[in-house]
């Protein structure tokens, strides 16, 4: 039985980080869509809700930040898991992420081991 690729929407305003993440995720057999702004991510999700299994978002971005995006996704898209990523590694930011509904919080720079079992981990924490 073949398993379909996990479809991930990645939001990061940094071009370099985005390219690296995309490559990392493709190598882990994800089907990747990227965008640079939270507002664009919401447009994509609203137009294509059933096309994504997971969202991976930076926190500090111009305009709507990752926390705000997370809250909107939790309200509008209920079961769609969101993983946050940031160089903010203080307890306050991490707690804030989880309290707002993030399934995981990755510290940047994201390593390939962070990505490796991300989907399985997110599914477990969602149950």
């Amino acid at each position: 039985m073949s398993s379909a690729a996990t479809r991930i929407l990645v939001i990061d305003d940094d071009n370099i980080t985005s390219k690296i993440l995309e490559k990392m995720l493709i190598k882990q057999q994800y089907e990747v869509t990227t965008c640079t702004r939270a507002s664009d991510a919401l447009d994509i999700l609203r137009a294509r809700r059933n096309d994504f299994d997971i969202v991976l978002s930076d926190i500090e971005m111009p305009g709507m930040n990752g926390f705000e995006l997370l809250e909107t996704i939790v309200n509008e898209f209920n079961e769609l898991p969101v993983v946050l990523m940031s160089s903010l590694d203080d307890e306050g930011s991490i707690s804030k992420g989880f309290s707002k509904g993030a399934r995981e919080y990755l510290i940047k720079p994201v390593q390939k081991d962070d990505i490796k079992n991300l989907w399985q981990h997110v599914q477990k924490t969602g149950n």
Partner: protein
Amino acid sequence: MGSKQLQYQVASMRDTLFKQGYLDEQFVQLEELQDDDNPNFVEDIVKSFFQDSVRSFNNIEKAMESHPFDFEKLDKYMHQFKGSSSSIGAAKIKEESTMFREYCRQGSAEGCLRTFQQLKKEHAILRKKLETYFQLARQAGPTETACRSK
């Protein structure tokens, strides 16, 4: 120069970049992403970084023309630059970026100016070293990467 000798030179140059603290383990992560589909992935990403840096530096320099400094704005610009430098494993650049952000938090214009000069210096040094490294790597041709380590 023979291929083996070139490959040895490339490996030695790479080793030195790590030992002298210019690169950190994140660069190894980049190398591990390189494959037959993207045989120049590392060089392409590094090139993009240096191209994007020009815009970041322009933004920061322009912001530094205003007095007093808008430290919040400067911090935001540097935050993004630090993120990319961290992503490619540019260790010394990342350190200077961190220091710059600390001076922004302290509201120290002098600290920001001094650190920014040092940052640009480190940036130029790394750019030159990596250009030379990639040029040599291209001449040497593909090598076995299975056992590559820092």
